[in-house]
Structure formats: structure tokens, C-alpha cells
């Protein structure tokens, strides 16, 4: 064996645990699910090939498929920009050099390390229509608060509010981005007489745009996989009136409750395509607004 081949072999041996994990637990299930999306498969019996029937049913005969897609899209359209703006705004505030800033940073970051199930359960109490803290406060001002989690009009807004509350996770990444912006740019701008607003518009935001871009892509992907909060709030039903029937929740119900893995796999592949297209579109736009400081 030549030294080069030996070197290659050693390298592959070193990364073999990861490679085995990738092929067995990622690539194989990925390819297998593609095949299963053309099958009638209930896990127990062998898959039966049925061609495009799952996709046909989903696209032409399943109202809940479109409903769940709409619930997810609506959430994405509202929650992603809001959490992005709040995350950046928080990072800007927490980038100031004031006394006790480390404590404030910790406080704002804390919500993002609370386990999702625990956070959702706490919100269910806070937003209880009769005895919850929010409605009690509203009552002081003579306002009758809504049934936040059992009124289909308010449920989406509640979930968006919960997402914004946990914006501390992205805030830390923005903060790291802000720290990376060279100080001399601000010094030069100050010498040129630029106002604080102008400095933010022409220095901070452009320099932060790669980080914003990263968070945007990750948020969009995460939003299409939104599941836990909806599952806990609706006890897995997707109610009230399908207002929390997110795509991933509906897919889960199809797979595990109705034991229709073939259909679930087809849904997963449609989701994959949607995520790919959305991410592709965001990548297309980056030339216009993402600056890499070159």
C-alpha cells in the first residue's frame, strides 16, 4: 500500500464512527423514507408499493394537509420577522456598556434554555383565561382578556408571543456578531459626523447582515418543524378548530396515531421540498442585502 493510500485509509478509519452514523442513521432513513412515500406502510406489515397515491391524496383530497400548511406558513410569516427584529433590538440594547449588563444578558438569555415543554406549560397557566396572570392584569384596566389558548383567533398570536419571549437564543448570536464589528468603522463615522441612526443603518446592520442571514435561514427551517408547543397546548389534537395543527403535528398524527407511515413519509418529502425552496429563495436574495465586509 502506497503511503498516500495508507494515509487516506488512516483518515477514513478515524472518521469511520461518524461515517457509519451518517450512513446508518441519516442517509439510509432519508432514502428509505423516499421509497416509503410511494408505499402503503403501517410499520408492521411490509410496505406495499402504491405509486403516487399518497401524493395524489395529499395534494388533491386532503383539506387538513392544506390547513396545516397554512397554519405553519402563517406562523412563519409572522413569527420569523418578529423574533428577528426583537433579537436584533435586544442585542443592540445589551451591547451597551452600562453597569450590570452581564446580568441583563443572562436574564434575556434565560428563556431560551428553559425546556420547551416546561415553558409551554407555564404559559398555559399564565394565559389561563380566568385565573391567569395576563388576564388578571388586563382586568385591572377594565379589559376582559380573551381565551388565549382556546380561542382559534388568539391561539396563533399566543404562539408567536411565546416565540418572541424566547428570542434570547438568537440574541446571543447577534450580540457575538455586534462584537465582531470593527470599532474603527464607528470612529470614522463619528469623525464624519454621522448620527447614531445613520451609524446603525450604514455600519451595524450591513455588518451584522451575515448573522441575520444565518438566523433567518435557521428560523425558517425551525418554523417548518414547529411541533412541541402545539402538541402540548392542544394535547396533540391541533385544536381549537385546527388553529394549532402545524404541519409537523399533522404529520406525526398521520404516522403514529393513524399508523400511516407511507403518507407521513410523503408529507415529510413535501416538507423537505418546501424547506429547500424557501431556503433557496432566501439564498437568492442574500446578494442584495448580505454584506461580508469585502
Amino acid at each position, binding site marked *: 500500500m502506497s503511503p498516500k493510500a495508507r494515509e487516506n485509509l488512516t483518515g477514513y478509519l478515524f472518521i469511520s464512527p461518524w461515517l457509519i452514523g451518517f450512513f446508518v442513521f441519516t442517509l439510509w432513513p432519508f432514502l428509505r423514507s423516499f421509497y416509503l412515500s410511494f408505499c402503503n406502510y403501517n410499520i*408492521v406489515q411490509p410496505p406495499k408499493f402504491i405509486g403516487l397515491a399518497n401524493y395524489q391524496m395529499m395534494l388533491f383530497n386532503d*383539506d387538513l394537509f392544506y390547513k396545516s400548511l397554512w397554519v405553519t406558513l402563517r406562523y412563519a410569516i409572522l413569527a420569523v420577522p418578529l423574533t428577528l427584529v426583537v433579537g436584533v433590538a435586544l442585542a443592540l440594547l445589551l451591547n451597551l456598556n452600562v453597569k450590570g449588563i452581564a446580568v441583563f444578558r443572562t436574564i434575556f438569555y434565560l428563556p431560551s434554555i428553559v425546556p420547551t415543554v416546561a415553558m409551554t406549560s407555564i404559559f398555559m397557566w399564565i394565559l389561563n383565561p380566568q385565573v391567569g396572570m395576563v388576564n388578571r392584569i388586563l382586568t385591572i384596566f377594565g379589559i376582559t382578556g380573551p381565551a388565549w389558548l382556546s380561542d382559534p383567533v388568539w391561539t396563533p398570536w399566543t404562539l408567536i408571543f411565546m416565540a418572541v419571549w424566547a428570542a434570547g437564543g438568537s440574541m446571543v448570536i447577534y450580540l457575538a456578531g455586534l462584537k465582531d464589528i470593527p470599532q474603527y468603522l464607528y470612529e470614522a463615522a463619528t469623525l464624519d459626523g454621522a448620527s447614531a441612526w445613520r451609524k446603525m443603518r450604514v455600519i451595524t446592520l450591513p455588518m451584522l447582515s451575515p448573522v441575520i442571514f444565518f438566523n433567518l435561514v435557521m428560523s425558517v427551517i425551525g418554523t417548518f418543524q414547529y411541533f412541541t408547543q402545539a402538541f402540548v397546548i392542544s394535547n396533540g389534537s391541533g385544536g381549537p378548530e385546527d388553529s394549532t395543527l402545524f404541519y409537523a403535528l399533522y404529520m406525526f398524527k398521520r404516522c403514529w396515531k393513524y399508523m400511516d407511515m407511507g403518507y407521513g413519509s410523503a408529507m415529510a418529502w413535501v416538507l423537505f421540498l418546501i424547506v429547500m425552496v424557501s431556503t433557496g429563495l432566501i439564498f437568492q436574495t442574500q446578494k442584495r442585502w448580505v454584506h461580508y465586509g469585502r
Partner: protein
Amino acid sequence: MAVDNWGAQNAKIWLGKVKTLLVVVLLAGFAYPILTAKMKATPYEGRQKIKFWHRWGGEWEKVVFDIAKEFNESQTEYEVVPMFVTGTGSETKFILSATGGDPCDVMSIWNGGLAPLAAADLLTPLESLMTPEELKYFQTVPYPSVRESGQFKGKTYGITIGADLFGYYVNADHLREAGLDPDQPPKTFSELVAMGKKLEKRDPKGNLLRMGLNVASLQTHCYAYGPGFWDDKKKELRLNTPDMVEALTAMVEQRKSVGFQNAQRFWASQNTGSSTGAWPFIDGAVSITYDGQWRVEEIRKYKPNMDYRVWPIPPPEGGRPLPGSIGGNYMIIPVAAKNKKGAFEWLKFWSGLTQPNRAAKFENWGGWLPLSPDVAHSPTYEGYVKQNPRFQTFIDILDGPNCHAYPPVGYLAYLLDELQRAEDTALRGSKTPKQALDELDANIKKELKKRKEMGFDDSL
């Protein structure tokens, strides 16, 4: 100076060493008992173990342990080992373990989840484990609706170890305050609704402070109006028949009289799932509510002096009395179980297929309904009902002619979800009862067509 620095550095090094030593000692302290612990020997060494999965946590788990202990003490061959599997996702765990070839030997599941598992060939037909005498007994003695709740395509895949029925819990004190007689149950559903109106309490703005009546779900309420949503003779669904529309309309009219929004807000704020004193009925937040028979046992524990009654659903004029829909806990034995014989012994022991009087004791511990009249009318069970007279209503429903099993169909989970959606939509006033049920019918037909095209076997 240099000497001082050296001294400080030396102290730092020593402090570091002491810290490391402390961590090691602490870790060793924790690890020692774990590493040296031996499996605690049970008094049943050498017996065949039966792995039993169940969904009872908290206080209920103790009941399961007590029954298991009695079984183990009665045995020389088997030892049952109960394991709590949390309710949410328990069926998923079962499916994965059964498919992977390493399931439990026996599991207690909700009967609504049984048909899909049976349709997927995951469960053992229990007739294959019965002796001819047991089979004869099982085919003739148990309550038909309780027996049928464990069957799919004519075979038995589950036998109850504690069935459930619902009834209206009535706060007698609230009724007296409102000038009503708790010992004069309403004869019709309209009378019940009128009672509920009298029991309501509102603040000056009209917001509910106390709910008068929380109505039964359509799943059971419909049996007071007709044969329900499943025609057992024709083996077909009847989701938007006139009697179904009438049943849902009656529910919607009652809700309308309370106020759709008001009722939603109030009920959403209650801890309805609580199995303690926080249950809205014990708490006094609702005067008449529809709930399961196990609440009798909970009231006995958490508010023993509470004066209450239990009424069956009153039918409409000319309707069907004593309607009921069997739910509850059914023992199943997976096809891949390693110890089917032992599992069946355990099932027989608890369910009352053998020794009904002994099984009665277990049913009473959990506040459950039994498999057969043999258990229900055993001295132990009758003694319990005498002590807890409110339990009698559930026995009456069980003995009555209008107690139903779920439709034995493989798509039951989907059907019940959709039925619940239709009811919810109508009760929120978003759709009329007719619209909601027509849409439900159309959705189910579409789903069944799809299942047929995809090769699902939904024939009965």
C-alpha cells in the same frame, strides 16, 4: 516579592489539588453504592417473569402494585413485573417494541387504541389462549358491550381489567340552593338544560362564575337519540343521520343559551383533567358535569362529605334511556410476546375470568367497572356499591340495553378525532350542527376511499 509570589503560586497549586481530591471523593461516594449494588433479590426467584406495561402513574400505580403483589403471592410459576409507561405515546412505544420483536408480554391500553393495533396484526387473538370452558364462559357471561370493546373482526384482542362509563355528577347542595330537588332527576334532556340554567352564576358583566351544566360529548350523547354513529348490523357509519343532527343540535342549543364564548372561556380556565380536589366539580366551579365513574373514588378521597348524585344522560322525548359508551383499560398480548401463557394467567387473574369475587376487589380499588355481571353482582362488588351508592348509576347503564362499544374499525383513531372536531366546531358556533356533521361525513368518506385505494383492509 519573588518569595511571596512563589508562596501564592504554591498555595494555588495545593488548592487545586485539594479541589480535585474533593471532586474525586464525591464522585466515588456517589458511584460506590451504584457499582457495588447487586440486583435486589425478589421473593419470587426462579419464576418466569411477565413484563406488564400499564399507564397508571401516581396514586394509581400503587393499586397496580397491590394487584401484582396478590398475583405473585398466588403463583408458583410466574412473577408479574409491572412497569409504568406514560400515557402520551405509550401506543407508539408499544408499536416500536412489537415491531422490533421485543415487546412486553402484556399491556393495558385504552380500548380506543385497540382496533388499529389489531388491524396491523400486532395482537394475539385471545381465544387461542383460552380453554374450551373459558371460551364458553367468555362468549356468554361478560357484558356484551364490554366484551365487544376488545374485539375486532370477530376476534378478541383485549379483555378489560377496568372499564369506564360516564354519568352526570350533580352537586346536591347547589341544586337545593336553586330550589331544585336532587332526588328528582330530570326525565328529559330539556329538563336537565333548564336545571343547568337555574344553577348558573354570573358576575355583573355576565361572565360565568359557576357553570350550571357541562354537557356530555356527542360520542355518548348521541345514543340517547338513536343508534349512534355506527350501525352495528349494517357495519356502516351513520354520521349525519337525522338523530345525530338532533343530538348535536340539542348540545349546541344548550351551549348557545350559556353563550359560546363565555362557556369556552370558563371551561378552558378549569383544571378539568385534575384527579384531585382541583377537579371543577369538587371545587364547586360546575354544578352538573359529565365524567367517569372513577370520580366516585376520587370524591371519596378528596371530599368525603360532599353531597352529590350521579344521573344517566336523560333522553329527549321518546329517546333511548341509559345511554353509555364503553371506554377503559384493556389488556392486550402482543403477537411477539415471549410469555403469552403467563400473560394470560395475569389477565385472567385481574379481569375476573376466574374467581369473580377476587376480581371485584381489584375493580373496587381502582373504582372501575367489571368485565361481567358475575363480578358486578359478587358480594365484594355489591358491598362496595352499598358503601358508594352513587356507583349504582354506572352499573345500571352497564346492565341497560343502550350501552355501546366503539365501532370495531381500523381507522377508529381518525374517526374519533374527526367526530371530536365536528362537535367542537358546532359547539363554538362556527358551523351549524348539520354543516359540521355533513362535513364530517364527507371527510370520513374521502379518507375511507383513500384507504381503500391504498390497500388498507377496512372490511368487517
